[in-house]
């Protein structure tokens, strides 16, 4: 068999993720690449359950479960301790969901980023509070159904632009990654390993139950998010140098292709979809300009 990403598995099977979980695959790829010399911190998120109940765990590296809003700063504390009483080369990794990142954890995240603490921060974004039963977060896209944004009142505001917020911190490395593009993800991880300071990864992680999608479509959805330019794969260095990795073509696939595979967008009217397409195109064009002026 051909292995295009590292072969060693650092996640045990038997974990409690739902069928076709994007967040579970994201962890598998991340740990493969960062390797055994890694300490994980999880705030409350799907992975607090996926990892398994005491006295079991699904990961083959040390893991500290912490409170919802503290992933970044606990990882900062772990790194500080490693510098004094451990191996300073050990990776300290915060691994949080979108709620723990865009909402409740943003203060501590901003603190660790501003101090440029030498650590990794990963957000596996499934665009709502999935672990508690699909409530809207500030990462939920405009128009989406969740249990707190019912179809007659879907989410009225756009998804928070976390990349712009993180770029404003002028941290050395920001990347988006997708479970549909593992080679791109591992390349970025290898690159980030060589960078001292705060590394932020935004991972697009489809959630079949929360998106009212078929588990078999997880990879297809993640791929479509990139191909429609909804979630471009990119890197931002020092908060200033933008590089768009994918899609390269200016004309992406229509967003409808992505929306129609998900029950959470079923109620959208033609006009809503048009508005969404305009939003995506504008945002992508803005990225193109940022890429151009920063080269």
């Amino acid at each position, binding site marked *: 068999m051909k292995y295009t990403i590292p072969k060693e598995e650092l*996640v*045990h*099977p038997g974990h409690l993720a739902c069928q076709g979980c*994007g967040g579970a*695959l994201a962890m598998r790829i991340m740990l493969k690449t960062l390797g055994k010399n890694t300490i994980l911190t999880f705030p409350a998120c799907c992975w607090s359950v996926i990892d*398994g109940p005491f006295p079991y*765990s699904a990961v083959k590296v040390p893991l500290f479960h912490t409170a919802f809003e503290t992933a970044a700063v606990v990882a900062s504390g772990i790194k500080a301790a490693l510098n004094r009483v451990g191996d300073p080369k050990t990776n300290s990794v915060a691994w949080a969901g979108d709620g723990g990142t865009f909402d409740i954890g943003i203060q501590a995240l901003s603190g660790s980023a501003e101090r440029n603490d030498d650590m990794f921060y990963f957000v596996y974004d499934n665009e709502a509070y999935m672990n508690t039963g699909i409530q809207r977060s500030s990462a939920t896209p405009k128009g989406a159904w969740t249990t707190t944004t019912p179809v007659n009142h879907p989410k009225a505001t756009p998804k928070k632009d976390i990349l712009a917020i993180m770029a404003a911190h002028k941290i050395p490395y920001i990347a988006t990654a997708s479970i549909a593009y593992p080679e791109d993800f591992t390349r970025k991880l290898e690159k980030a390993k060589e960078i001292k300071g705060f590394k932020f990864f935004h991972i697009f992680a489809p959630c079949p139950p929360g998106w009212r999608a078929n588990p*078999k479509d997880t*990879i297809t959805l993640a791929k479509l998010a990139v191909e429609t330019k909804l979630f471009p794969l990119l890197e931002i260095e020092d908060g200033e140098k933008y590089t768009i990795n994918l899609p390269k073509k200016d004309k992406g696939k229509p967003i409808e292709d992505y929306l129609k595979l998900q029950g959470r967008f079923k109620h959208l009217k033609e006009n809503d979809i048009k508005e969404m397409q305009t939003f995506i195109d504008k945002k992508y064009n803005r990225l193109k300009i940022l890429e151009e002026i920063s080269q």
Partner: protein
Amino acid sequence: MKKDGDKIIFENAADLPDMAKSMGTTRFNKTGTWRNERPIVDTDKCTGCGICWKYCPDMSILEDENGKAAIDYEFCKGCAICVEVCPVKAISMVEEEK
């Protein structure tokens, strides 16, 4: 603390660590029982490209002695991602025999 296969057994409080320190792995949890349908690999068609392995969220694609994909039915949850991503349509879902 005692081990019974992948299971961990504590006798009492004294046997327990001071905090919830997990010393066992999720391998105790045979998620294969979650399936309604099971993936079947047609090894004649399989080219061993590794794409299904790469995308499996459950580490349930193994490699057989001929370098082809094999399913770990002990843990495969039956999500069918492998069926969807296979470029040569070598994997199909069949109803699970209970």
